[in-house]
């Protein structure tokens, strides 16, 4: 072989013949290389022993992996805390943790209790604080109270906004002129409230067309809700310096309170390949179902890790994520999702809302073929999983052996 000096063609042929995955074969070659070559017989024995070990570590056919996975996730649930608010790495942002978060995930809620995003940056945005802040300001929803003082003059029926010059310069780092920013703000107000504004420098004034005390107060209320810059759903952004897992370099990472995944990805400076949200539906919408599956796995794993239960094997989480995304969209686990859409009437009736399922089944003339587990428990038949899935056919060995001598090779049987 080209890469390996000491792996002869005979050895390679013997190793390649074994029923083991590539990664293990490569490790065998590495070992042989390290030992500066072995005899083909030894290589074969090594490969055989590895194969035996490998086959031993594989899941047994007919293993009820579903139930095992469900138990492996459900059982640690009893050890989790109910405390909703706790800190996830970033002390500044509260995130739902523990059992409530786990329930939220398998429920596939449309919006999580505490939406948040982890936004990674690319290029100089990740290394320079100034540039990172540019991204922050284009994400964080900026409301009027953050920009200056608002005062209501009842006598003149005007609302006066005294914009803070420094804040403007900070939040609009790409614009050099305060006037431009103030003008922009004034225009936003005009568009949003439908009033005329008067501006002198950084002071913006406006009032109701006809003098009305109520209208004036209403305008102030409305003014507070206007988003001048950034994304409405993102209420707060926290910037942190972290070590990049892959490169080991330091970089700036943004954590947001509130989530608007689709709006954040196109922002300049955002590294869309690493940025994530804890809203699995947003990920599904923007990146597709495979990404959503990955997000479910990561989110559940993080939830477990936060509780010190990260010894749960990822494979269990993968199975849960896979069944939730199996139909190409996110289905919840429970009555409104997977359990409610089962083929079997009896299985659905045995889970929840028993009577309605039976009545509907009657109307639609459904037929239960008794394939699943729960149905067969109900009717008292063996279930087709594990040892119940094996059919043992008994017959004379001699008779079938006679038949087979005629044929050159034994025919594979039908089952």
């Amino acid at each position, binding site marked *: 072989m080209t890469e390996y000096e000491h792996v002869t063609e005979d050895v390679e042929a013997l190793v390649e013949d074994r029923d083991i995955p590539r990664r293990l074969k490569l490790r065998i070659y590495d070992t042989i290389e390290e030992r500066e070559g072995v005899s083909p017989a030894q290589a074969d024995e090594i490969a*055989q*022993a590895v194969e035996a070990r490998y086959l031993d570590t594989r899941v047994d056919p007919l293993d009820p992996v579903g139930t095992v996975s469900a138990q492996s996730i459900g059982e640690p649930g009893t050890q989790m805390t109910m405390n909703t608010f706790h800190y996830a790495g970033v002390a500044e942002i509260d995130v739902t943790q523990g059992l409530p978060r786990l329930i939220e995930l398998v429920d596939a809620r449309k919006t999580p209790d505490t939406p948040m995003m982890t936004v990674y940056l690319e290029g100089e945005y990740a290394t320079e604080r100034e540039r990172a802040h540019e991204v922050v300001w284009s994400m964080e929803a900026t409301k009027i109270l953050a920009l200056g003082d608002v005062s209501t003059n009842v006598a003149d029926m005007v609302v006066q906004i005294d914009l803070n010059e420094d804040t403007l310069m900070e939040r609009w780092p790409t614009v050099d002129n305060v006037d431009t920013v103030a003008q922009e703000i004034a225009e936003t107000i005009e568009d949003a409230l439908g009033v005329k504004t008067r501006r002198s420098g950084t002071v913006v004034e406006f009032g109701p067309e006809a003098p009305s005390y109520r209208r004036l107060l209403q305008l102030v209320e409305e003014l507070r809700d206007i988003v001048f810059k950034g994304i409405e759903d993102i209420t707060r952004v926290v910037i942190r310096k972290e070590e990049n897992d892959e490169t080991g370099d330091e970089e700036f990472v943004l954590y947001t309170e509130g989530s608007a995944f689709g709006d954040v990805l196109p922002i300049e400076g955002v590294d869309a390949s690493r940025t994530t949200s804890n809203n699995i539906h947003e990920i599904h919408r923007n990146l597709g179902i495979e990404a959503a599956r990955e997000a479910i796995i990561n989110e559940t794993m993080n939830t477990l890790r936060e509780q010190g239960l990260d010894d749960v*094997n990822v494979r269990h989480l993968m*199975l849960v994520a*896979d069944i939730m995304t199996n139909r190409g969209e996110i289905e919840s686990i429970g009555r409104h999702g997977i359990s409610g859409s089962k083929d079997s009437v009896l299985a659905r009736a045995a889970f929840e809302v028993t009577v309605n399922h039976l009545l509907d089944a009657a109307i639609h*003339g459904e037929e239960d073929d008794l394939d*699943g587990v729960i149905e067969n428990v109900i009717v008292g038949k063996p279930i087709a999983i594990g040892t119940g899935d094996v059919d043992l056919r008994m017959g004379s060995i001699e008779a079938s052996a006679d038949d087979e001598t005629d044929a050159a090779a034994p025919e594979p049987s039908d089952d």
Partner: protein
Amino acid sequence: MQTPKEIGAIQFGLMDPETYRDMSATKVITADTYDDDGYPIDMGLMDPRLGVIDPGLQCRTCGSHSGSCNGHFGHIELAAPVIHVGFTKLIRRLLRSTCRECGRLSLTDEESEEFRDGLTRTEELGEDWTDVLKSAVRQARKANNCPHCGAPQHDIKHEKPTTYYEVQDVLAGDYSERIASAMQPDEDDEDDAGMAPSTLADQTGIELQRVNQILSGEFRPVGDDRKKLEKALDVDLTEEDMNKLMPSDIRDWFEDIPNEDIVTLGIDPNRARPEWMILTVLPVPPVTARPSITLDNGQRSEDDLTHKLVDIIRINQRFMENREAGAPQLIIEDLWELLQYHVTTFIDNEISGTPPARHRSGRPLKTLSQRLKGKEGRFRGSLSGKRVNFSARTVISPDPTLSLNEVGVPERVAREMTQTMNVTERNLERAQQYVRNGPEGHPGANYVKRPDGRRLKVTEKNCEELADKVEPAWEVNRHLIDGDIVIFNRQPSLHRMSIMAHEVVVMPYKTFRLNTVVCPPYNADFDGDEMNMHALQTEEARAEARVLMRVQEQILSPRFGQNIIGAIQDHISGTYLLTNGNPHFSETQALDLLRATSIDTLPEPAGEEEDGRPYWTGRQLFSELLPDDLNLEFSSSTGDDVVIRDGQLVEGTIDEDAVGAFGGEVVDTLAKVYSKTRSRVFINEVASLAMRAIMHFGFSIGIDDESIPEEANEQVDEAIQSAYDRVQELIEIYEAGELESLPGRTVDETLEMKIMQQLGKARDSAGEIADDHFTDENPAVVMARSGARGSMLNLTQMAGCVGQQAVRGERINRGYEGRTLSHYQREDLSAEAHGFVENSYRGGLTPREFFFHAMGGREGLVDTAVRTSKSGYLQRRLINALSELEAQYDGTVRDTSGTIVQFEFGEDGTSPVKVSSNEKDGIDVENIADRVMDAEFTSDEEKERFLGRREPPTNLSEYAGPGLDKAQSTEVESDD
């Protein structure tokens, strides 16, 4: 009708009233059950043709006796049709979407076609078709006129639960007044001068004369005229006319709906006709489904369903009589409604808006729906969860002399639980002996079965006689004996290790006995826990239990892929004492330590004491339990590196990380690399050795073990005092308004966080001070270090300072306005006013501290209570959703209908049982290569096995089979 042998499929559908009558055993007309002599009344609710419940009687329909007769349905001919409550929504939908004249669906043929296609498509995709149905109904409802016959359609109003009205907009009676008032000028608005009749005539295009007629109420403006007037005056001239639809009307209406049209609405015409949703005949459930109970005083108590049926028949009878007598319509309607009510509550007694039918005592009746619903209902309570025979439950207690595969079964339980023994020539004598011992003696027998199928009870009187009759081909139900396999379970059964198979050891007294090492998988302790045992009844079940379910097969947990069974608590303290510092033992001591294990010879002594006597070390003795070729290196929880070379513990302390449950390295390696049997033997022997060791050294804990010297106490007080000072400083800064808030936090939050931080530090330093004053021999320290029980935090709280009490993750802030207790000033931010406990448990808490501590403790209790129910439901949902998934021979994961969920389990097909979560795969290629190259195999057989050409020997019992088991050390014990 014949009972099927095996159910192939179950069809659901509605039943034709004619079929009801056909299958009915009798018509029921009498609202009474039994006559004065206690005999069931003919054509009454307990008619003997409906089945038998009293033993000894014969069924008048099928001729079989109680127990073998399932019962037979009867029927009640309803005087007038009534609506089935379960289908009220569907009835409403049908009324709204079909024509009142011709019964056709109010959709054009093309639309129908489209919805039908949509329906089949969603069904093929296995998706929910209710959305398609709803949009079809919505579309049909829009039609004002029937697209087929052109008849105008009216809106349907549904008054829950079972009343329907046809709503028509008709001209209001006071139309002229309404028009006139609309023409009056608006008093508030000066600009409005009202409208003159002539203007109105101009605007609407109605002649002035006609307008005047309308205004005087002589002419009724209908149709276009009305609409024009309404538009011009901006007034509503209609009122709703409600026409009640009687169930008989609805039934007639539905009869006209053609089969093709209901398919569009998702109804299968082969199984259900819409008119069948209106009941004309009511089936009477067989008496077996509503047995009456005879109370102690001889009074009969009837089932809830019977009570309800009595009501129905009574009203039905009255209805018929009244109608025949020609009673006024009003009375008939009232009775009709009453009949509807009774039939409704017969089906479902929890309909909202309807008062539930009650028993005389005021308890709501449990009718049909209530029988099916919920946790104790038919589905979840009786069909998914079944009651079984051959089960036992009692308190558990520990017995370290048992193997982990065994369970001590009280003799009394063993005498009840039996195993069927097929008598052959080979076991004839034993079988006879069992029968001879009778039901009271242990190992005896309770029943015998002759080849002709007759079962005989073995009694004290007939046992001798019966024993002689026993021959091959008989069956003997003998008592449980040592070595039988049983299933053992502790609830809640959260994972598969909650149900495991054990081998029986029959014992005196009344508790189940367990080896303490199986406590972690069951999550059991001995503070009064009870467990269940099930004796297996078929050979297949026993074989499966032995091969798959025995405790030793469950040593590795599939959750994290490491051992869940291993040494716990005192075992760990024991091995710690034995190996930490490597103490010396004399020959007698060494032999005493090993005497509970299978090791019967001592190794070469490690050296000689000064006086010339040989000594053995703790590590040496521990090494005796290890396989000779074990090589391992890891770091222990005590903190030192453990090195095992060629089966000898060279250095390091054996503690939780080595032999403990939940991933003890040695146990884990033995289970994965060697065999389950080897690891079972190891765990048993480690436990025995550790118990001997801990007894050798002596181990106890008392209150004095947590006390620290006076100077240490002073240091702790100092540390706490300085923390108080720092907190005071923070408060002063805060009150001066100079506290800088952390990003994203308010100043108040920042202050709280900083105070919490300071107080946390105070407790930690108190802990450190306390820790410095504990010796390494302190039993609490030994337990915490070795991982046996407790933590350094526990010790800190006992000896140093309990620390901050928290509710909802914050300092305690609740109570009175501005303060936690009336002992403090308002707005006191100090540590002690918000639940900081500066004393230690050993020193004792002040009353106020105690109160705060109780607050924190209460939160914990509430948390646990809430959590168990929430996580229980989560678990149930997860299992229900995933229960059908199974790994296939091709490595894919599919559900029982064949849908592929994963192409390879966990992306690489690796079993979570055999590979722990933190490693990639469990294969050490280097090590394998080493072994092959060095070729250090003692025999060809071993090498064959290593290469996987030969299966390792299987062990099926503690008593038999290859491997290290009881068979090696003792004779196979005789069965009696």
